[in-house]
């Protein structure tokens, strides 16, 4: 060891070390900054207009909280629906289901507003201390599209430091880091933190677009009790019940969860209380965000197949059925899609004047069988798809998905 110490340094080696350091730095910076670029979205040709959240809440202009708002209007008058994905950017199926809407939707009646990356800042970093993959790939017709896997909370670079305790705009005291959790910041504050302003912006979308029904797309870990669930605000209770029955007939098991009145700051609570709309939140099971997972890989995001969850299911520790088929992203997206459609159908039953009707979307079973990628646009160009993407089974694992299964194991 002594010999090593005798390597004499001089100004030349000093300059070389500093240069080496600067090069490592520059390389890391360019790789890292790549995460700050939002993945492109290719809206369907029937898009009415693309807005930004800052158009509804101007203070968000040129901030990392600004995000795309896609508006689809139908020829016939009707109700208006808001769908948000990416309120939690690590819940891939929420973002992906919203993206599927944006890239395929044709609204016939009423209006549909989709915000696929509700917390845009949360897409710019990864879940810390989890070894989270930065990206995952989805096979689309003619190639692979790569997407960012974000984090649950707003990027601390954009909102820092966290308070030791956070008083949500709705008045509940929660842990400090929740100040960066968009789904604790509703109904937002117009001059609050970045996350609170984003929440305020979404409430402004609800007000300015005259939204009547809001659906917030999420995922949760398979060991979390509120899963495979429709969480409903009391204003949407009847609709949620009708939708759940329809889904049950389709062979999709959903449980109903009433939004607790004393849990403040969440979309399904505050959109209803402050936005005055029927608010619902959907959950699908996502192993990559759970505590029991093995190695978090891009494949796990897409296949949802994890040996440790399989073991936990065998021990009866999960709240959902889970077998060797895993919980593929395509199946999770299909569940979101089926639930949104069932909710729209029940809206038509309960409030025919507020109905929204659309076309252009695949049947949920087709998303399971062909993979969600078959219904996304090829990453390279924007043009309309030439076919239904037949035959391209996403790596999301095509083939027959689980048959309908009763309750928990």
């Amino acid at each position, binding site marked *: 060891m002594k010999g*090593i*110490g005798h*390597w*004499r*340094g*001089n*100004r030349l*080696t*000093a300059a070389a*070390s*500093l240069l*080496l*350091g*600067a090069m*490592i*730095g520059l390389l*890391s*910076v360019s790789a*890292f*900054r790549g995460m700050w670029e939002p993945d492109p979205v290719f809206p369907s040709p029937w898009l009415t207009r693309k807005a930004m959240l800052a158009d509804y809440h101007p203070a968000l202009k040129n901030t990392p909280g600004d995000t795309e708002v896609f508006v689809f209007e139908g020829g016939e008058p009707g109700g208006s629906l808001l769908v948000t994905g990416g309120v939690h950017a690590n819940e891939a199926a929420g973002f992906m289901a919203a993206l599927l809407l944006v890239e395929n939707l044709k609204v016939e009646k009423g209006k549909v507003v989709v915000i696929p990356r509700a917390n845009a800042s949360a897409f710019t*970093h*990864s879940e*810390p201390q989890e070894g989270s993959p930065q990206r995952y790939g989805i096979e689309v017709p003619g190639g692979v599209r790569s997407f960012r896997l974000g984090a649950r909370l707003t*990027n*601390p*670079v954009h909102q*820092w*430091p966290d308070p030791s305790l956070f008083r949500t705009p709705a008045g509940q005291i929660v842990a400090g880091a929740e100040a960066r959790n968009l789904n604790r910041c509703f109904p937002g504050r117009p001059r609050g933190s970045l996350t609170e302003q984003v929440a305020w912006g979404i409430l402004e979308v609800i007000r300015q677009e005259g939204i009547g029904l809001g659906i917030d797309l999420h995922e949760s870990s398979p060991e979390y009790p509120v899963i495979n669930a429709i969480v409903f605000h009391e204003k949407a209770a009847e609709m949620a019940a009708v939708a759940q029955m329809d889904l049950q007939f389709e062979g999709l098991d959903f449980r109903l969860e009433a939004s607790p009145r004393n849990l403040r700051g969440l979309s399904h609570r505050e959109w209803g209380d402050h936005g005055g709309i029927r608010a619902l939140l959907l959950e699908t099971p996502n192993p990559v965000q759970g505590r029991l997972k093995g190695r978090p890989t891009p494949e796990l995001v897409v296949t949802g197949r994890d040996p440790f969850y399989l073991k936990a299911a065998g021990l009866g520790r999960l709240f959902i059925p889970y077998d060797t088929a895993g919980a593929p992203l395509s199946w999770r997206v299909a569940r979101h899609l089926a639930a949104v459609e069932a909710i729209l159908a029940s809206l038509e039953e309960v409030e025919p004047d507020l109905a929204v009707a659309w076309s252009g979307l695949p049947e949920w079973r087709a998303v399971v069988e062909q993979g969600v990628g078959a219904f996304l646009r090829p990453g390279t160009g924007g043009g309309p798809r030439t076919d239904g993407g037949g035959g391209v089974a996403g790596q999301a694992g095509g083939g027959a998905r689980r048959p309908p299964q009763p309750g928990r194991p």
Partner: protein
Amino acid sequence: MMLQLAYRLIVLCFAAFLVRYVWEEKNVWNQVGAAVVLVLFVLRAFLWK
């Protein structure tokens, strides 16, 4: 915002100290080591990963 600026200012001061250390140091391994610490420190402060 002000806190973040102050934090970054402190990081820059420490970075300047490290640059000077590398420049003056007579042991080449210490030079390389300090240069790597310098990179990590600055990246951590400005990119926060």
